[in-house]
């Protein structure tokens, strides 16, 4: 699946997109996998209360299942309007 990052999450990780070919069961499993990659991932995902997640372009919780998901995005709380 594609994993996208926006705003300061993208800046902290250093690029806008990763490809993940393992099959994490939930968003939280994906987060753990990313955290283990490098320090900058661990830093970006250190405080989940500061993050929001969308699965296939729909806002979800961190315990949401990922079976069949094609795109997961992580970003800070939105500031539109």
């Amino acid at each position, binding site marked *: 699946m594609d994993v996208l990052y*926006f*705003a300061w999450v993208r800046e902290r990780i250093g690029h806008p997109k990763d490809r993940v070919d393992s099959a994490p069961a939930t968003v939280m499993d994906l987060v753990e996998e990313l955290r283990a990659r490098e320090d900058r991932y661990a830093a970006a995902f250190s405080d989940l209360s500061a993050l929001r997640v969308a699965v296939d372009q729909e806002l979800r919780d961190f315990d949401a299942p990922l079976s069949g998901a094609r795109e997961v995005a992580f970003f800070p709380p939105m*500031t539109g309007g």
Partner: protein
Amino acid sequence: MDIRVQEAPFDLGAEANAFAARQVGMGAVVTFTGIVRDLGGDLTAMEIEHYPSMTEKALRAIADEAASRWQIGDALILHRHGRLAPDDMIMMVATASRHRSDAFQAAEFLMDYLKSRAPFWKKEVTEAGADWVAARDEDEDALSRW
């Protein structure tokens, strides 16, 4: 429903006139326009990032939800992204209804949801550097009234 996400500037007056002109039997038209403020007196630019494949979908869901809650004949959501200058218009919404109360409430609802549920992120650029605008608790709290 007219949902537009664009980098280009828009003309509030032309949009408001076009929106009002295409209404039939609607007695009330409400518009809201958001403008880049230079709070500290040193703002160089406001950069707006968004999540292209999600943005229109999220805006359409918000507009559909408004249409299911209030009797509105039409709604417009127009939101810019990219690099904006102080005093530039960031976005606008418009609603039309037979009744002023529905038009006002639907517009406020659209704005409250746009603030916290549409995938836009603002970054303020000053000479001293650039900072992402933090979400405000009161914007999140505003959702609880609907």
